[in-house]
């Protein structure tokens, strides 16, 4: 039952938590009232394992429609993908918009730096990747995790890893 919050918690495994907080590309999917989807990129994630919650930092200046969509209906899908080997996971759940804390800002700065380095190793120059890592007017999307899927291309793509009981 999607959209139904608060009753139980999806415990995020340590390995997923570590993966989500490592230099992986973070892309967000939302939709508006007419079910028109919208894409955005986040600049870092903070995983609260025990609460089954992930905070995603995103530039409201760059991605205003995504922030609007989350404010309006809360439905959010997030894919974390490691650029070097395409290992990917998709997380779905309900989110709210919150102001960023000092910790969020520090983490976003660290994420941008490590992401630049990781993409640099793949031959992508800083000037190319910079537009994907904008941090103007950051907000935090607080995602309560309901489902986690394997998204790595191959036979297991789409397989459910965790679901809210």
């Amino acid at each position, binding site marked *: 039952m999607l959209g139904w919050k608060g009753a139980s918690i999806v415990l995020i495994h340590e390995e997923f938590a570590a993966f989500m907080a490592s230099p992986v590309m973070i892309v967000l*999917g939302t*939709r508006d009232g007419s079910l028109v*989807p919208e*894409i955005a990129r986040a600049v870092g994630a903070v995983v609260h394992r025990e609460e089954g919650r992930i905070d995603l930092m995103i530039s409201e200046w760059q991605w205003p429609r995504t922030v609007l969509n989350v404010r309006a209906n809360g439905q959010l899908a997030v894919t974390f993908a490691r650029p070097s080997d395409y290992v990917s996971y998709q997380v779905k759940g309900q989110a709210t918009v919150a102001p960023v804390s000092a910790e969020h800002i520090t983490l976003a700065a660290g994420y941008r730096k490590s992401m630049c380095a990781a993409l640099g190793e793949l031959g992508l120059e800083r000037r*190319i990747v910079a537009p994907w890592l904008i941090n103007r007017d950051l907000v935090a999307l607080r995602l309560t995790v309901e489902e986690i899927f394997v998204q790595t291309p191959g036979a297991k793509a789409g397989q459910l890893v965790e679901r809210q009981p």
Partner: protein
Amino acid sequence: MTIRLRDLVACFEGVIPSIIATAAPDGTPNISYLSHVVLVDDERVALSNQFFSKTAANVRANPTAAVLIVDPRDGAQYQLYVAFEQTLDSGELFEEMAAQLRATSTQMGLGEVMRLRGVDIYRVEAVHAVPSTRPRLKVPSREAGLQLMTVAAITRKISEAVDAGSIVDAVLDGLRDRFNFTNAMLLLKDPTGERLFTIGSRGYDRSGIGSEVLVGEGVIGTAASERRPVRVSDMSRIRRFGSAVHASSYEENRTRTILLPGMQDTMSQVALPMIAHGSLRGVLFLESSRRLAFTKEDEVALVVVATQAAAALALAETEAGEGQPSEPTVAAEPVMAGRQFRVVHYAYDDSIFIENEYLIKGVPGRLLVHLLRIYLREGRTEFTNREIRLSEELRLPDIKDNLETRLLLLRRRLEEKAVPIQLLRVGRGRIRLEVAGSAVLEEAAD
């Protein structure tokens, strides 16, 4: 300002992965990376992906989707708001995308996993430039007029060439000097149709003349089997076959195989089929250490060059075959003066070793032994294509259409190895054997 899809052509090169977001009827969004987005026309894009089943299910229930594409030259992002129209499982566009996918997946060793099941066509309803605090670079696209002038200059050189060797040189020199494409190879199909062999190259530390590629294998072999151009703009994701094998003449002598030349740091590749008279003649191949070295416009220009070369080579073959009747050349004793050298012929695969160095095998090997035998028997040095074709000893019905290029391969390989036997083209359909020293021909059983 409205952004037209045609202005975003660089975003469709497949360098930076694209992303698609969809929504299920209950509103649950889904977000996934895409393997391939193709520009169909100013209003449509095509998506191929073998893995994203949730996306496929969503758009069938709710056809609205968002696609994020990225310009690999400056990282600029564009969000396309699209509507799913239909799935194609046949037709020109499907075949083109399937060929591209097969070319890259055979190199990644993924084969069946990457089989294309369908191509989804989406109508683009709006294009939105994602804001960036970074300046957007204005990268001018190459002018079509300039491309056309370059193509005209190369095809003119090709049309002036009178034999297969000069045609190959006109193509490769033209690509280097006019287009500034420094690494290129021209491969021709052998009569069995199973292989392509390198007849000329530019820009490599060794020419690789005589090296072979199986039809259907890699970028070159796929262009041949599919008879379509294959272009890869970012090879860093693809393991290059055979790159680890270090080429050496020791290896050649042991394996009787000449290795394909290659760049260690290749990033972009394009292979163009050479078709004339409805049949595949060969493949023109170019590569570069730069990402995105070959644009779609370059590919189109190169198709014209490859097609012109194929027609010219087909014509050269026919003309050489007509040849003049054999004039009686002065019969002389073969030169027995000078340094003695050994030529060993292995009958089972027609491989030839000169002074223990592997030269060539197969039909060109058989041709060389044939000419050498006549030379040693009669002292004759000049031969016509016509007499070679009619020779009882050669028994080669299959070389009917390929004699000129087989002789060219032999000639170039002799040059490359700098051995005391050389072959010269002395006129239309006429060749001369030049032997410096005293050749001793040995037949080996195994």
